[in-house]
């Protein structure tokens, strides 16, 4: 369960609203079931008390919503940021994508978010209600008694391999600060690297062929904030609405991953939202790992204003062939 409670967040937000420090709150809104939570802008205390939630299913990263919210709202926007969200927040500031003065950021600790598919794998389908407590209690149509699920067993992939419990940006912190973790997030990349090219090709072929080009990965990505995406621009020559074949499936994902390389904070939103469960994070992490290995450790968003590896160079960088040879 989460260490700070929803009522703590609501009370704090209500106080900031009532003293006029902020004029809107970006938060998670109760859905139809207990897990389908929607990002929403709350304008007053009543709205917060009616529908604001904070539980094990609040995965949405609000950083990108600040682009629109700070332009729309008069006064400051209060935003709740989980540790991984703060990296995206900083990265967007590095790219001058929103006005920091219009935001009041509250850092909140996060114990990891649950993946509903993994919950269902344990509880079965037909969920009637979910109670997030010490354990997650799932009541379904097909089980007589609620099924207990441990959060640790149903974490989203990005949370199971959490890179940091430390908030790198906030105006105020609720609860305790955490640390940057020694994450195993590159293990799967290394496993893929250890495969033969044929195996790797088959792996990606299988995953990418499921892509329906809904653009959810792109549209949710805090690093994808171009006014006009090259894939939407008829003048670009690569505009493409649906993957006509395997080439176009690969093209989109390679170019997208490349374009966010060095700016991707590995927040994992792309993989979370993919309706086809394509492990998109493995593309982003490959770039991060390669850049770390060849150009020195770099974490996008760790600080505002840092220079990403692909907009930087040294005189003695390895050659492309060396990068490949080094890995064998």
């Amino acid at each position, binding site marked *: 369960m989460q260490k700070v409670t929803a009522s703590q967040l609501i009370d704090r937000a209500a106080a900031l609203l009532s003293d006029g420090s902020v004029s809107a709150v970006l938060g998670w809104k109760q859905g139809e079931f207990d897990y389908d939570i929607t990002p929403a802008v709350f304008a007053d205390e009543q709205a917060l008390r009616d529908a604001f939630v904070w539980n094990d299913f609040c995965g949405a990263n609000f950083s990108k919503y600040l682009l629109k919210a700070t332009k729309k709202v008069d006064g400051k926007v209060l935003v709740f940021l989980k540790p991984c969200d703060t990296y995206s927040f900083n990265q967007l500031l590095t790219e001058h994508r929103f006005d920091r003065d219009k935001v009041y950021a509250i850092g909140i600790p996060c114990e990891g978010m649950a993946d509903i598919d993994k919950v269902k794998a344990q509880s079965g389908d037909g969920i009637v209600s979910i109670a997030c407590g010490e354990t997650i209690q799932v009541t379904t149509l097909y089980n007589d008694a609620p099924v207990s699920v441990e959060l640790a067993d149903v974490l989203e992939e990005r949370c199971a391999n959490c890179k940091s419990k430390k908030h790198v940006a906030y105006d105020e912190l609720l609860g305790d600060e955490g640390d940057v973790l020694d994450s195993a997030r590159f293990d799967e990349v290394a496993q*893929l*690297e250890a495969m033969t*090219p*044929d*195996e*790797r*090709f*088959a*792996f*990606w*072929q299988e995953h990418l062929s499921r892509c329906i080009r809904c653009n959810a990965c792109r549209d949710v990505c805090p690093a994808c904030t171009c006014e006009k995406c*090259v894939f939407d621009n008829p003048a*670009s*020559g*690569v505009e493409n609405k649906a993957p*006509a*074949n395997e*080439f*176009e499936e*690969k*093209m989109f994902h*390679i*170019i997208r*991953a*490349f374009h966010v*390389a060095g700016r991707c904070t590995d927040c994992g939103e792309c993989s979370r939202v993919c309706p086809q469960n394509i492990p998109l994070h493995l*593309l982003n992490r*490959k*770039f991060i790992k*390669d*850049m770390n290995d*060849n*150009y020195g450790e770099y974490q996008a968003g760790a600080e505002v204003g840092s220079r990403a*590896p*692909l*907009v*930087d*160079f*040294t*005189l003695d*960088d*390895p*050659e*492309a*062939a*060396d*990068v*490949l040879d080094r*890995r064998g």
Partner: protein
Amino acid sequence: MQVNGEFKPLIVAFCCNWCSYAGADLAGNNRLNYPAEVKIIRVPCSCRVNPTFILRAFQRGADGVILCGCHPGDCHYTSGNYYTRRRMAMLFSMLDYLGIERERTRVEWVSAAEGAKFAATMNDFVAQVTALGENKRLEDLRCKK
């Protein structure tokens, strides 16, 4: 592409205007042979080459793509090729990660004086890609006749 039953790879060579393109010119002036399957695309600087160019070249039927620029330190624009070096290292590593033969891509630094190196590089690269055979993993069937 198949010519008289024999596989002749189509190679796209992106050459920077200041060094490598001049190097290719010199190779020509010196009557140094390199295969006609190498199609040169002149770019103002090697760092003009966007990853989409490389992928599009494969889409449009290339069996191998080589990028040639000034030697590090010699860039006409001071630092363009340093950026190229990082970008292409990352891109080619990613292509390899997706299981695409790493021998299909190469970066080579060729100066305006290195006509011989240009010809030798192209001969070597064409031989390397010929050994691999046709590009199947990054092909777009619509573009194959």
